[in-house]
């Protein structure tokens, strides 16, 4: 079953085409790694999928529903973790309180659900600690617990391990695999880490404003021509961004 169907998605911002005619589908149970250089449109793609931007052309269907209809049932079935999300150190909330936010829209807080989510991410013992006291990696796991406490069908992660040390990154990827295999959660995950995508994703979408490649992970990583073309386009995007920044 196709959980996500994106058809001819285009989005422009301030006269610049950020996404150009992107089409792809995601099957239930997939881990889709989305790769692309900085400024390739990965975060914009997620913003469109999450209903944060709606002045795009084309269609995005999640669970068969056009997301422009703003069906709250669809949004409740999505967990989302933002890029470089840091929790403000002084925010007065315990780990348990933050995770409980994930089940706001379903009614009464279920202590069991929260405990289960915290156990999955290995933080049950920390439930009464203030979230601001935790390390960056632990905070990221709290946000995952919040995202999964509502038993989402789809988890969208935007460069979730930025700023986290290597050991925590590996733990994080193992957790994603576990969520995918044991909880049957479909995952879309934007990353710059090609090695991690190669190890954990079942399929890959490579975007740089338009779709560059979409297929099985091995099809991408076992094709030297594709890899070469990807690194060249990344380099060009990097140079463009570098020049742009220095001129600005």
């Amino acid at each position, binding site marked *: 079953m196709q959980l996500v169907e994106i058809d001819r998605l285009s989005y422009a911002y301030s006269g610049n085409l950020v996404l150009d005619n992107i089409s792809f589908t995601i099957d239930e149970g997939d881990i889709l790694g989305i790769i692309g250089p900085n400024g390739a449109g990965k975060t914009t793609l997620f913003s469109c999928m999450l209903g944060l931007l709606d002045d795009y052309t084309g269609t995005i269907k999640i669970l068969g529903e056009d997301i422009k209809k703003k069906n709250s049932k669809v949004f409740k079935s*999505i967990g*989302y973790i933002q890029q470089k999300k840091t929790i403000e150190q002084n*925010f007065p*909330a315990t780990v348990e*309180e933050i995770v*409980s*936010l994930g089940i*706001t829209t379903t009614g009464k*807080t279920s202590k069991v659900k929260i405990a289960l989510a915290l156990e999955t991410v290995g933080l049950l013992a920390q439930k009464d600690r*203030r979230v601001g006291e935790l390390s960056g990696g632990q905070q990221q796991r709290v946000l995952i617990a919040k995202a999964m406490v509502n038993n989402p069908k789809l988890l969208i992660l935007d460069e979730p391990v930025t700023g986290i040390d290597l050991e925590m990154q590996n733990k994080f990827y193992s957790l994603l695999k576990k969520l995918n295999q044991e909880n049957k959660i479909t995952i879309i995950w934007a990353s710059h880490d090609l090695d991690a995508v190669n190890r954990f994703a079942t399929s890959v979408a490579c975007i740089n404003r338009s779709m560059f490649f979409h297929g099985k992970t091995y099809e991408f990583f076992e094709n030297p021509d594709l890899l070469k073309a990807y690194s060249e386009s990344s380099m060009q995007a990097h140079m463009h961004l570098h020049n742009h920044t220095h001129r600005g």
Partner: protein
Amino acid sequence: MQRALIAGISVAITSSVIGLFLVLRRNSLFGDALSHAAFGGIAIGLATNIYPLWTGLALSILGALGITKLRQYAKIPADATVAILLSSGLALGILLISLSGGFTLDLFSFLFGSILLISVEDTLAILAMTGIILSIIILLYRQLMYITFDEEQARVSGLPISKLNYLFIILASVAVIVSMRLVGILLVSSLLVIPNVTALLFNKGFKKTALISVSISIFSVVTGIAISYAANLAPAGTIVLVSTAAFLTVLAARHYSKRKQVVKKLEEARN
């Protein structure tokens, strides 16, 4: 005195609960803007013989909703919209007062508070508004906390952000009107801000911080009223100064405790 205490405790609870969300959203001065808008409304009420709390409430809500829309559509910074509402409300009040021949005793009581002279009618109005605010906050506590924690995440999870934000603005306006009777327009934001900033120093979770803030607020109001009654001082100023003293005491205690911990850690490391 009994009415003053009942109304004072109600106000203490309401203002600290609403204030926690305002402080965490970095909107501490929003209460000031609301109270100054209410000042214009109160002047309208006094000039037209309508119960001033209702006209103050109406103008405060209209002003707050207006600047929220302005902030969204014209992309004007939050602090600038607060300044617009604050000065416009005050200007309207001054204009109406000058037209009606100057300050009256009633207006002074709204500016500086008059909790010891509070009427049965005002006490009942305050109790009713407190009941409504607290019921809604308890009902929507988790949603409001989510928006305060991360508005974008809350939007993605399907919460009706705009509706909740507008509702919160209305609740904040009501809280400000309720608090005005106690400490006056000029000191309203102190009740919203100081107990919450003090409670945040305890580094606890959300519920505990809210409870600590409410306790500090009640302590400040009750102690302030008692001192002002015994020493014949202005209650509003006394309440706010007690609250400031509580803040400074907690701050000093925290500083001392941190230093003690640092010394202890150093000693442990040396041994």
